[in-house]
């Protein structure tokens, strides 16, 4: 830490938006507001306003829709002794219950957290962030929101674990007569759900979190929108 966050909240901070400029989210370069594309890195320049939230909500909804079949359909089908000992189809939750049944509590917790808790928390967090984005907030609230955003962005891709587990098990456990595991349709919809929520989190513009802070030039700010 050089210039600490501790001294930051004291004075209003000059932002690119307040200066009538546009910052590039990809490389940080600052351009006049009529620029559409960053000349340095070639990324599209987007003003930090609530219009961008449409993308967030669109991907969010797509992710939520795909999450329903991901829980209803079986994730994988296990066949032991050519079906003589029964072949079982397990959805995500049934898989967790099965793991607990065999006493693998630690793995059951990992799978439960990765494929149930994390996706749920992600949907709720993104929805909440998108709803409060741009609303007035204190500096502490803004820091909390940014933290949540960073956690969501970081953790999103880890939900893909479940898809990989199914892939590895299906490739590995092909013991002919003894046991075999086949992937179920839920694997696809779960993978899509994770991908869509990742896109949703990426579409969220964290600069919006800070737009709602009380500013010295608040009226100017509103006039610009």
């Amino acid at each position, binding site marked *: 830490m*050089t210039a600490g966050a501790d001294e930051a909240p004291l004075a209003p901070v000059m932002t690119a938006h307040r200066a009538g400029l546009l*910052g590039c989210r990809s490389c*940080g370069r600052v351009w006049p507001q009529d620029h559409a594309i960053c000349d*340095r890195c070639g990324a599209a320049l987007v003003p930090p306003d609530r219009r961008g939230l449409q993308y967030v909500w669109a991907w969010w909804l797509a992710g939520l829709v795909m999450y329903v079949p991901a829980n209803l359909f079986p994730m994988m089908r296990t066949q032991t002794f050519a079906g003589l000992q029964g072949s079982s189809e397990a959805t995500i939750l049934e898989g967790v219950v099965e793991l607990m049944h065999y006493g693998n509590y630690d793995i059951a917790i990992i799978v439960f957290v990765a494929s149930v808790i994390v996706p749920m928390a992600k949907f709720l967090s993104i929805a909440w962030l998108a709803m409060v984005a741009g609303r007035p907030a204190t500096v502490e609230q803004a820091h909390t929101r940014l933290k949540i955003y960073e956690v969501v962005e970081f953790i999103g891709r880890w939900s*893909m674990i479940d*898809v990989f587990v199914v892939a590895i098990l299906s490739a590995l456990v092909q013991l002919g007569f003894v046991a075999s595991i086949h992937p179920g349709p839920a694997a696809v919809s779960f993978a899509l759900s994770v991908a869509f929520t990742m896109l949703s989190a990426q579409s969220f513009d964290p600069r919006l979190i800070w737009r709602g802070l009380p500013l010295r030039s608040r009226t100017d700010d509103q006039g610009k929108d």
Partner: protein
Amino acid sequence: MLPCALLQGVYLAPMDTRDGFDLTTGRGLMACPRCDALHVEEELDAGETLRCVRCGGLLAKPRGGAFVQLIALSFTTVVLMMGAIFFPFLEISRMGFGNATSLFGVALAFADGVLLPLVLAVMVMIVGLPVLRAFLLVYTLAPLAQGRAPYRHAARAFRWTELLRPWSMAEIFVIGTAVALVKVAGLATVHLGPAFWAFCALILVNLASRGFMCQTTIWDAIEDAGLPTDGREAVGGPVP
């Protein structure tokens, strides 16, 4: 090497053109990508770390010799990935029945019916993107490390390197393997192949690479080394 001093608490009137930056065109300024706070670009020494005055996010952390290290680590990634593809990955056996799988086998597990697109997605996420990102990074950094002008489209190459970062999931795949192994452990005996260890090594390489990576420094180096821009570059000396 680059930024930044801070415009903290200073209200600058538009048209203010103090030395080094220009509030009407944005020359010599940098905006925090997370909170939009403006910072004045300034040279940082290797080893220094710059955080945003407002949100505390990391803005720049130039490290000495980072470009060469990043290039070396990119090559390491490609070599390890080649090993991971061609060596056996996992092998199980039970009651005389055995099955070995390579990385391709894992992806092809989804190769029937509706699951077919998932084969491609899994291969891209665990093999394709890490290798592609390594090549793009070498393409961007190789000329910069030698102090020459960057290749054409270096800026685009680096932007894609960063865009694809969240989709490159080799490390998640390794954790997935660990979970799968515990699930299988009761069912059969498992042997770990060289490809598995190559993947574990990839995680370490990835972590090291992340430690040397400073996007701001690389963007600035691309610009300094003369990728065609509009010539507003203000870093590294007095502005005319």
